[in-house]
């Protein structure tokens, strides 16, 4: 009697084909799931998907808006990718982005028109990054020195940051609030000189933020994959024990990466503030950008360079959402698709890490039983 079973075995490095195919298939599978829900609710999936493609890439302006949406996602994606690779579970990019925005706006308002833009803008961006790093340190320091689980602390810090941001504009008369706005509180507009310039008229309001984001992604990749410092980081990520025995200062490495991750997320908030928003606007900063960044990182398999195209794809989805309202389809379709893509990408990870084979039960030699289907 032939009994067969499926065995799962870990494999080493999967081939490039498998590594590319799995994310693409997960996107495809998510589109299928989305199509099922769209059909069930009486919509035409092809019409909806074509509309989304058109909104995201159909015009120069659309492409500009897609890249605007992609900018913070690339940065929060890089923030998650570098941390996760080191087994630092920083899921606080959301809050670090917000505090980065608060810090950047604070610096900008404090500087005022005293400095020329070319000096002030970089200062403000650095200030935002510092804000993000500072917020991350609240979780990073206990993690490194006390062993406190950073998953929960970074998660909780997100909600503290949301309330902090809202408090500064909606709950108090802080310097962040526009003193002119009494009935409907708003963020105080930044000084005119502190503004990221736009790239080209044809691309609408797209500013240099996208180039900064791409630069940061490439720099992060270079640092981690091409330098001795990055090699040590990867050792810590792959095997903390090995790192310890070979004399790498593990706590210090973890702290550095944690703060760097927070700084990159903070930079995302700063770019939004000095770029398209022009003020610290809580409503435009509380959009789940940090959480989507985690999807971006997971889909990019924690490779900072791969984060760039994935970030643009997610930016395209975000940008396409509002366009769906014109054909009476809920914007939430996009969130659903993003969640589904992530679920499939996560599941796909299994097929990258493991090989699945069907084998006969052990205890028989191949001569005993004919191979099914071989004849």
């Amino acid at each position, binding site marked *: 009697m032939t009994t067969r079973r499926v065995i799962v075995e870990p494999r080493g490095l999967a081939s490039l084909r498998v590594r590319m195919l799995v994310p693409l298939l997960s996107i495809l599978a998510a589109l299928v799931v989305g199509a099922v829900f769209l059909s069930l609710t009486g919509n035409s999936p092809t019409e909806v998907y074509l509309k989304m493609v058109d909104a995201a890439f159909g015009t120069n302006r659309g492409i500009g808006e897609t890249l605007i949406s992609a900018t913070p996602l690339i940065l929060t994606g890089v923030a998650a990718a570098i941390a996760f690779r080191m087994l630092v579970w920083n899921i606080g990019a959301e809050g670090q982005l917000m505090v980065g925005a608060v810090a950047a706006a604070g610096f900008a308002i404090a500087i005022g028109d005293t400095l020329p833009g070319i000096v002030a803008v970089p200062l403000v961006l650095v200030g935002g990054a510092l804000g993000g790093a500072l917020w991350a340190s609240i979780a990073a320091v206990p993690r490194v020195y*006390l062993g406190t689980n950073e998953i929960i602390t970074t998660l909780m810090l997100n909600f503290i940051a949301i309330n902090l941001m809202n408090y500064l504009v909606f709950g108090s008369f802080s310097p962040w609030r526009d003193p002119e706005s009494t009935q409907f509180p708003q963020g105080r507009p930044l000084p005119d000189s502190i503004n990221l310039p736009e790239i080209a008229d044809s691309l609408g309001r797209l500013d240099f933020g996208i180039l900064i984001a791409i630069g940061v992604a490439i720099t992060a990749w270079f640092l981690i994959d091409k330098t001795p410092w990055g090699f040590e980081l990867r050792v810590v990520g792959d095997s903390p024990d090995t790192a310890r025995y070979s004399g790498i200062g593990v706590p210090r490495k973890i702290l550095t990466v944690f703060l760097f991750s927070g700084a990159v997320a903070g930079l995302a908030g700063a770019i939004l503030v000095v770029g398209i928003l022009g003020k610290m606007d809580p409503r435009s900063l509380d959009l789940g950008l940090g959480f989507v960044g985690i999807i971006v990182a997971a889909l990019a398999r924690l490779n900072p360079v791969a984060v760039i195209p994935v970030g643009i794809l997610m930016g395209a989805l975000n940008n396409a959402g509002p366009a769906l309202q014109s054909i009476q389809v809920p914007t939430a379709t996009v969130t659903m698709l993003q969640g589904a893509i992530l679920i499939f990408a996560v599941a796909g990870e299994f097929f990258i890490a493991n090989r699945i084979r069907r084998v006969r039960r052990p205890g028989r030699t191949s001569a005993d039983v004919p191979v099914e289907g071989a004849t």
Partner: protein
Amino acid sequence: MNESAIVLTIFAAIGLGTPVVFATVGEIITERAGVLNLGVQGTMLVGAVSGFWATWVSGSLTLGVLAALVAGGAVTFLHAFSSITLRVSQIVSGLALTLFGTGLATFIGRAGETPLVGNPSKKQFEPIFDGAIAELPIVGPLLFGHDILVYLSWVVVAASSFYLFQTRFGLALRSVGEDPASAEAAGVNVNRVRYLHVIGGGALSGLGGAYFSLALVPSWQDDLIGGAGWIAIALVILASWRPWRALFAAYLFGAAGRINFTLQTLQIDIPSNLLAMLPFVLAIVAMIILTSGKRARLLGAPAALGIPYFREQR
């Protein structure tokens, strides 16, 4: 504050806390099995919209509750499958579930010719006792003034506490969360235990969501539940993975919300945003003080929490 104001506050705290009780106990059961589920927020929203929808089409609250339980369990199956069978990162998988669930719930609420969103519920849970017993001073409202789901939540807390600490199944569950390899050696089917409790925990979260849409708010709106799912994750730590403590933690959270409201009506200016931070700040402080290193064990954190179990690699 006079006596009746205190009673009113506690009464309101029980109402506001009840959805969080269900979700927190659900997450405690999940985490006791060694699985971290960050999908609670999405699961609660799916439960809320499913329960609302089922009551909307059938006119039956019972069917609404059943739909919420089933829907909560069903979406949580995704997390169970990824984290137990596929053994992928529980963090990423859980966040994916929250994202997917939030999108799905909003989508269900807004899709179709006559969307559910913005409608009041066709039926809603009402207090089950009336007459003299409910009008007794103090104990009337506090013990006999609630709808049936509040009493159900007490039953769930008592039963899950008994189950966890007094039964053979509870022992097996806790052993799976502490040391899955030893549990397996002792004859416990680790994966089956994990599947059952992760999905059961998800069903409870779904029910917690439905408490919003069928009792507390009774209506459906996008993001109806606020951040209740995240609060539940914070309260699991504050309750140190114990159901009875979760009940009181959830009521404290409810009281904070109510006091916030009372202060506003009295025009006492404690900014609501700062008060809203409180549970999260407390959770972080508790994490740092209590769960660092060895003390985490005293607190009751399952040792294998968040770690995938590789049977073949034992």
